[in-house]
């Protein structure tokens, strides 16, 4: 192989290994991660209605997982993903319309998304556990 044809393994941008973590980039990554989690979570939702339609016994089986510690963490995590992806999705829709691109605005909307999604998750947990 000639020198010119030899593959060159230059680092690809963005250089994640030397990249300083920032709120904006972290929220962007989290948006994708929660989106992937919710895609799987949507399948779980389908399992829920299918089990509910099948019989009381299959539904009881399903519910026994939901009320376990693991199930509570799973459903609580699902709610956080839903609230976060919802809030940050709205932030994305504003960007799509051309608003909020100034650095100051991007940070402010980012913190609002973090605050609202955490608050909504905590309130849901409190209300949900009280009713359960």
């Amino acid at each position, binding site marked *: 192989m000639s020198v010119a044809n030899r593959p060159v393994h230059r680092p690809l941008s963005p250089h994640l290994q030397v990249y300083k973590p920032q709120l904006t980039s972290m929220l962007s990554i989290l948006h994708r991660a929660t989106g992937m989690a919710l895609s799987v979570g949507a*399948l779980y939702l*389908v399992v829920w209605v299918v089990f509910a339609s099948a019989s009381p016994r299959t539904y009881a089986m399903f519910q026994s997982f939901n009320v376990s510690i693991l199930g509570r963490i799973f459903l609580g995590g699902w709610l956080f993903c839903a609230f976060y992806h919802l809030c940050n999705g709205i932030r994305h829709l504003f960007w799509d319309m051309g608003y909020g691109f100034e650095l100051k605005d991007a940070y402010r909307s980012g913190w609002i998304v973090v605050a609202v999604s955490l608050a909504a998750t905590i309130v849901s947990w409190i209300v949900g556990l009280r009713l359960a």
Partner: protein
Amino acid sequence: MDSDRRTHLSRARGLGSAKEGVHHFWAQRVTAVALIPLVVWFAVSLIMMSGADYGVVRAWIGSPVVMVLLVLTIVIGLHHGQLGMQVVVEDYVHNEGMKLALIVLMRFIAVFFGLAAIVAILRIGFGG
């Protein structure tokens, strides 16, 4: 001389290098907007039903308004998820065959689960 070097036909078609124009982008946004009220409604309903027994949950799913909203939430949610997962695969999977296979597989999964949910909800609603 045209500044963007595309042919007139290419410009008129407006399909770009992705060969499907803005269809994916637009479908992702429209489903996103539809999901805003649906997810809020669903999350609030789910929390309010914490600890509800089998009968209550079935009665809730089977009521007419809930049936419509639940089918919308699940079907649009699965569609939106499939569109998003497609982008993830397109970003990270570089083998063309594997990429195509995964995108098709995710579509199949979305359609299969969507239909399963619709049948289950209708079955509860119509007392099957």
